[in-house]
């Protein structure tokens, strides 16, 4: 399969401080990759390198020519003080194509409405963004990413702070977009249990290193115990994988934290 994004011995970091070293992996066309790990482990650093806002300190990060990213930021990074209608937010996804000094056309509005229909909230097009629920806001941001007709959909913690129902619906929607449109999806999350049952491959970014593979390869007790440094159980229930960290004695906990 054609590789869209390639890391070749890439070292990533800020200033002189390397956060991740010697990363080598590919993201092929049609992939659904979950970039999973705790906060501060380097997920956002990898994301920035992919989106082109961070140059590798060593090695290379190659992006296929003509690749278009549809970016869905963390919900809280958007300023809800601005009184914008849902359709106006979605239109922002076309701003770079509209050009400097020009206003969105009727065609742009139609495309925005199509994107809203795609994510199932066309009926909310004229509502204020601030009046929506967390799940509806996330759908709006996904619609904005889709209206630019991306090759790769990138989602940064799309279910952060959501309840069980909204989380399931949003992850289901992303999975549907991947399957229906054969869209390459890269999803960043700290919640392994949530992501593991929707993605096809997982890139695990933890303090102890980086490992990438299929869900079956990564979701093993051995791999997760090695990566997280604590004993982990992996179980299956109704076809879903569940990861549970074994209860540890306080002494062992202290040792891990140290």
């Amino acid at each position, binding site marked *: 399969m054609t590789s869209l994004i390639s890391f070749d011995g890439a070292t990533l970091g800020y200033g002189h401080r390397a956060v991740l070293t010697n990363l080598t992996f590919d993201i092929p066309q049609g992939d659904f990759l979950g970039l999973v790990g705790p906060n501060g482990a380097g997920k956002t650093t990898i994301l920035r390198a992919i*989106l*082109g*806002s961070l140059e590798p300190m060593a090695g290379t990060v190659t992006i296929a020519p003509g690749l278009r*990213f549809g*970016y869905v*930021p963390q919900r809280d*990074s*958007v*300023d809800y*003080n*601005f*009184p*914008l*209608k849902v359709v*106006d*937010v979605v239109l*922002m*996804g076309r*701003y*770079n194509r*509209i050009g*400097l*000094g020009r*206003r*969105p056309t009727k065609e742009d509005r139609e495309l925005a409405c199509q994107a809203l229909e795609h994510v199932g909230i066309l009926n909310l097009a004229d509502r*204020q963004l601030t009046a929506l629920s967390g799940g509806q806001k996330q759908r709006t941001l996904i619609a*904005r990413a889709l209206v*630019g007709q991306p090759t790769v959909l*990138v989602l940064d913690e799309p279910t952060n702070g959501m309840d069980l129902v909204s989380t399931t619906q949003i992850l289901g929607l992303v999975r549907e977009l991947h399957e229906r449109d054969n869209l390459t999806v890269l999803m960043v999350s700290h919640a392994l249990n949530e992501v593991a049952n929707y993605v096809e491959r997982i890139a695990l970014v933890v303090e102890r290193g980086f490992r990438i593979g299929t869900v079956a390869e990564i979701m093993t007790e051995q791999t997760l115990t090695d990566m997280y440094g604590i004993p982990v159980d992996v179980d299956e229930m109704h076809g879903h994988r569940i990861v549970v960290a074994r209860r540890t004695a306080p002494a062992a906990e202290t040792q891990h934290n140290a």
Partner: protein
Amino acid sequence: MLSAALLFKDALYGSLVLSVVCATLGVYVVLRRIVFVGAAIAELSSMGIALALWLSGMGWMAGASAHPVAFALIFALAGAMFFGIGGGARSGVPPDATIGVTYAVAAALGILLIAKAKSGEAHDIFLQGNILGITRADVYVLLAVSVPVLLAHLLFYKEFLFVSFDRETARTLGYRVTFWNLFLYFTLGLVIAFAMQFAGVMLVFNYLVLPAVTGMLIARSMGGIFITAILSALVASFVGFSLSVPFDLPSGPAIIAVSGALAVVAWLIRSLQRR
């Protein structure tokens, strides 16, 4: 009342020009929660004026007092650029603390410089503002600054909006976020530096904040906020100015009082709508 105000019609025209341009920029100032950046830039600008008067008074730059706007501009734009790139956020000092430090130090230095300027007492008016002193030539100067700024905001509305609303996504779509952010702050610094010559810190701050707040309370869209803010600033200027002349009141505070009254009315309307 109107006929009395028309005795100072250039001053009235000048305040109306300031109303439109400051209220437009004020929408970003309020929505982006950078209200006190506006105040700090105004103080920096006022400090620039004080420095010009002090240098001139000391005989080091004799012509400086004739062109205080150049000094006001340098300090206002330097401040705007500083806050535009993050205001020293990397040093670990919280952004609002940096704004507070700038405001306090600039205000104090302005007062100290004026106190030691030989021509200082006569020129206190530069710091307080003297809206009645606006001449026809001043109106043209204000128009020469305001029209390009307003055109830039009309032309690049979606760029300013996008980098203000969601800078991360704007960056991934190829926008030069730092450039657009600095451009926005540059227009703010430019307008404040010129407005300060005539309106003073307090009135400029009012024009940047109160009309936009009125707009936010009344309108439900960006377009609506801009229109309401501009209209309320124009009404406040016109009514405040017209009342101040026959009643022998200072024009700046009269305009601010009307702006405040309009904001209270807007707040009452909003409260009634929510019931």
